[in-house]
């Protein structure tokens, strides 16, 4: 997918979200902007709203307040059908585990990426290229997904998330079920293929050790303060920033009643 390097891959404005019936905002982010090909690591403890954030960024959950743009196109607020459409076209998602439909073959699982879009289905050549690049041997391709090891399943999930060269890849703790060796090769493959597909990555995890794979990182608290991972060209906001939450921070207003 051709991406305009000057249009942010992801832009959040004044995001505020609260669960119905609860007081106070569960999540509020004044602003977040990710340029194309940026790979951002977001760290947060369990219950810090990571999954809610991902649901809002992928348009699965409606955003009551604020705006989300993907490659310049408004995702939130938008009708549910429109959000589903944009997600199918522009967002790839990788879960913690069990990413695959167990009764489909590997190739069909990857092909499923195009099932709900207006775009052309990913070609067999593209699928085979991705599977090869991700180190899945050819004799597995037409076998059922539930015969793979967890590590192999996660690699198929990357292939599916990147099959249509989406603008944004959202990964929700995809390494949590992998051992150290597998995790390392998984991270390298994920980021290499995302780079090759010009895809921007948001990677969410509670595991600090994974931060080393990313040039940009934030934790949930910094997000709430509006700390920005700056794009290449500007002063790089990198690992050092994470230790200094006040830098680049915008003061935020007092949270009003939800």
């Amino acid at each position, binding site marked *: 997918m051709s991406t305009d390097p000057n249009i942010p891959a992801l832009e959040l404005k004044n995001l505020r979200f609260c669960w119905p019936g609860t007081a106070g905002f569960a999540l509020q982010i004044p602003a977040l902007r990710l340029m194309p090909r940026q790979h951002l690591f977001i760290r947060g403890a369990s219950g810090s709203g990571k999954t809610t954030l991902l649901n809002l960024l992928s348009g*699965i959950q409606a955003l009551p307040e604020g705006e989300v743009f993907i490659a310049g196109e408004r995702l939130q607020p938008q009708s549910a059908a429109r959000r589903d459409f944009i997600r199918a076209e522009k967002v790839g998602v990788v879960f913690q585990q069990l990413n695959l439909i167990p009764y489909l073959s590997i190739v*069909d699982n990857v092909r499923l990426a195009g099932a*709900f879009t207006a775009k052309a289905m990913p070609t067999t050549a593209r699928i085979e290229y991705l599977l090869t690049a991700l180190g899945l041997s050819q004799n597995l391709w037409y076998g059922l997904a539930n015969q793979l090891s967890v590590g192999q399943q996660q690699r198929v999930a990357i292939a599916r998330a990147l099959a249509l060269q989406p603008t944004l890849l959202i990964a929700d703790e995809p390494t949590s079920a992998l051992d150290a060796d597998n995790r390392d090769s998984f991270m390298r493959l994920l980021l290499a293929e995302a780079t090759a597909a010009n895809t921007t990555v948001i990677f969410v995890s509670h595991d600090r050790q994974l931060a080393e794979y990313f040039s940009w990182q934030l934790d949930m608290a910094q997000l709430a303060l509006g700390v920005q991972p700056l794009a290449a060209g500007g002063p790089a906001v990198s690992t050092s920033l994470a230790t200094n939450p006040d830098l680049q921070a915008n003061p935020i207003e007092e949270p009003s009643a939800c």
Partner: protein
Amino acid sequence: MLVKLARLSLWHRKGTVMLTLCSLVISIGLLLGIDHIRLEAKQSFTSTVAGTDLIVGARSGQLNLLLYTVFRIGNATNNISYQHYQQISQHRAVAWTIPLALGDSHKGFRVLGTNPDYFKFFKYGAQQPLVFADGQPFAEVYQTVLGAEVAKKLAYKLGDQIILSHGVGVVSFSEHRGQPFTVVGILAATGTPVDQSVHVSLQGIEAIHQGWQNGMPSRRLQPSSLDAAKLAALQPTQITGFMLGLKSKAATFALQRQINEFKAEPLTAILPGAALAEMWQMLSFVENMLLVVTALVLVATLVGLTTTLLAAMNERQRELAILRALGARPWQLFWLIELEVLLTTLLAIGLAMLKLTAVLFVLKPWLSSNYGLVISVIPWHEHTVLLLSLLLGFALLLGAIPAYLAYRQSLSQGLMVRI
């Protein structure tokens, strides 16, 4: 893609799906089977007699008259005189008549006294005439023509001699021993009561009752003492009833009224079609009950299908979340579940049809020989499409419950599945 997903998803859960499918096939088979046999029985029933415009007997109810003349069930309240029969058969509107004399039997099969016109004019089903499987109509007094079922069950062949009994029970205490009848013809099977009848001439009936008084043989005059000349001169004095065909259908009601108002003797004339329809109405409550029971079985099965799907919804949360993440809309997930219901039901219908056809094929000879029910093997009628559409619609309606759950879940749960 949705169809492929539904198909493979069903295949993935083939154990439970197979069980559901089995019960669906059984109950759909039952439904179609009962419906089919009901219609075929009705068809067979209403085609017991065809082409006859009026049936005439002594004054009684129309069902009684129909039962004893056509179905050989029950007895006439009274006989009618042969002379009046001849008088009516001379009527200018009448094309043909078939006299019927009942009251005797052979080993439980009714004996019908008639004349050779019976084999010429009697029609059943779609205006089919009687056909001889073997032999020919009777020409002499002590000759008989057997229905297909009689010949088959009692293993009679041409040339065999049989003894008739007075009365209609299987065991009779007064047999017409002196006068055996020779089998000269055997009729082909018709699927009507004709198959269960023993046909003799009116003269034959008269001959075996010569010298009888008050339903008992008299000692004075033994029938065997009749010589050939006397036999030939025998004329019946009474018959039980008769069928008649008209030259023009337009005269039906006029003639019916004339016969009903016949001065010399109290008679009743009925329209066989109307009487048959009225009788079927009386019998139809049985078929309706059967249909209701089957419909309930079917509902139970469909509820079972829904339950199976509902039970699977929990383990499919993950699957639905993945599809949502890939951009599937909630209504697409709704249709995915409905498609599974549709595929299962369609498959079940197909299999049920095949099963039913096979069963009918196997049962056909048995039904025909034991119940005189001639049915077609293909369970397809005009309204079968409607019936099956209703069935599908109902399945989809029940399937909408798990489908709606999938829809709701996919709206509220988002990408995460909480375990």
